[in-house]
């Protein structure tokens, strides 16, 4: 096993009822790298990343075949707890979804559900993660304020901080900038580049420039299949598959 690979999927098929959403997808996700998944809406990218933190289990009437590994461990084996996987693999969703609680409690929540009670430790960790998520300077005077009072971009950075607090190893971004303006988007992208030093990042995006800007590797999905996967600069400058080329040059999608 190559130690630079953090997670990989092996011939993954996924079904919603009788509809097949993913067709034999195999991919390597490299450690401390940003992997972007691109492709038209409904091609299975979001479904795919949600396999890495076992979120699809929450949807009824679904079926998975194939294997998914994190650090060489089959995450769907019966001795592994989904709760444990979700702590290790954080997720930032398409729409910012802070809890209707204070900024402080939003971050402390993950610590508390993971059994941490020490107040000093929680306080320190909240400050530390807010700094890491480049939000500290904007909220340090109002940690007790409701998180719902923040702007969309700030809320999204709060959601990122929330992931970081539980000492996640991987962060899955599911179109994190879909509802944000260009300035907020820029801040999130900067943050992603900063975070890759410590975390392995997978990002689903519809924005081709964004994929080109932030990612090291890119995978192109079409109708549930992974058409092409490779280094981002190769995918964008010399795609091997005609369909990839057509998509990134905007000829369909």
């Amino acid at each position: 096993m190559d130690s630079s690979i953090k997670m990989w999927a092996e011939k993954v098929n996924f079904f919603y009822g009788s509809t097949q959403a993913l067709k034999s997808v195999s991919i390597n996700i490299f450690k401390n790298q940003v992997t972007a998944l691109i492709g038209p809406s409904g091609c299975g990218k979001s479904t795919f990343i949600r396999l890495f933190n076992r979120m699809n289990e929450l949807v009824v009437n679904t079926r998975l075949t194939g294997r998914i590994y994190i650090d060489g461990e089959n995450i769907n084996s019966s001795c592994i707890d989904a709760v444990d996987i979700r702590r290790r693999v954080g997720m930032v969703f398409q729409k910012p979804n802070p809890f209707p609680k204070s900024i402080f409690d939003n971050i402390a929540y993950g610590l508390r559900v993971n059994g941490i009670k020490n107040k000093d430790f929680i306080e320190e960790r909240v400050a530390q993660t807010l700094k890491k998520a480049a939000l500290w300077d904007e909220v340090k005077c109002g940690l007790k304020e409701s998180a719902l009072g923040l702007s969309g971009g700030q809320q999204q950075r709060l959601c990122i901080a929330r992931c970081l607090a539980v000492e996640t190893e991987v962060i899955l971004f599911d179109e994190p900038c879909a509802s944000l303006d260009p300035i907020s988007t820029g801040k999130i992208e900067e943050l992603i580049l900063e975070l890759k030093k410590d975390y392995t990042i997978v990002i689903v995006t519809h924005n081709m420039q964004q994929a080109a800007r932030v990612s090291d590797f890119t995978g192109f999905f079409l109708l549930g299949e992974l058409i092409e996967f490779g280094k981002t600069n190769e995918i964008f400058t010399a795609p091997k598959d005609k369909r990839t080329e057509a998509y990134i040059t905007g000829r369909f999608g």
Partner: protein
Amino acid sequence: MKKDIAQNIGFFLLFTCIITTLFFLGIIIYFIFTLGIQVISWNFLTQSPRNAMTEGGVAPVIVGTLYLTLGAMVFAVPLGLACAIYLCEYSPKSIVVNIIRISINNLAGVPSVVFGLFGLAVFVNFLNFGVSILSGSLTLGILALPLIISASQEALVAVPHSIREASLSLGASKWETIKRIVLPTALPGILTGVILSIGRVAGETAPILFTAAAFYKRGYPKSIFSEVMALPYHIYALMTEGTHPDKQKAIAYGCSLILLFLVLFISGIAIYLRQRQRSYHG
């Protein structure tokens, strides 16, 4: 131009409807207040009835209603909330669960006197609790259950899926998510259900008729197995029985006013709590 006229007529009609509704509400409050206030005094609120309920106060009656309402809530709120959580969060989507849901909604439409007879048969006779606060509270509790369940269900369903997912994605279990995220978010809606059911329960006469209420009882209830006097039944008794209809009528209006204020007061507390919760949620 034509549109403007249609719009103005529409607004006018809506406005008239509001005024009519408020008019009736105002009249009710006005009459109860002017007729009731005459007998209200410190003694009326703190003393026991005297001389075949034509003099003295109604303190034990107020206390009886408070006990019955409180007892009903102690029973119905945890049970109703638990049912709502199970139905919304845990139950599989099946025909059986749908039938349960529909049954609960239908339960809300059952006439209250039927609950009274049920309470008599089950709590008073079968379980042998006798005519008591316990039997009355349980009967009122059952009456309140469907209200609390459906209001709680609505409140739980309204909690966005996105924040549940966020909680689970941080390594919280389903139960932790429900306890720490879903319930606090749904609390204002749940409280609304509880407010409404308190109002309903405090004013109900038929369910306590055979299960808890006494025509006259000396002193305050001693245990949950005591019979009690309660405001709605007391009003009924004063208006229909006894030897001094005029004196009794005045006291009955006094009781109505107290009942009205009691319900407003309890609702007020709940509304205050809800408001505080809301402002925090932003």
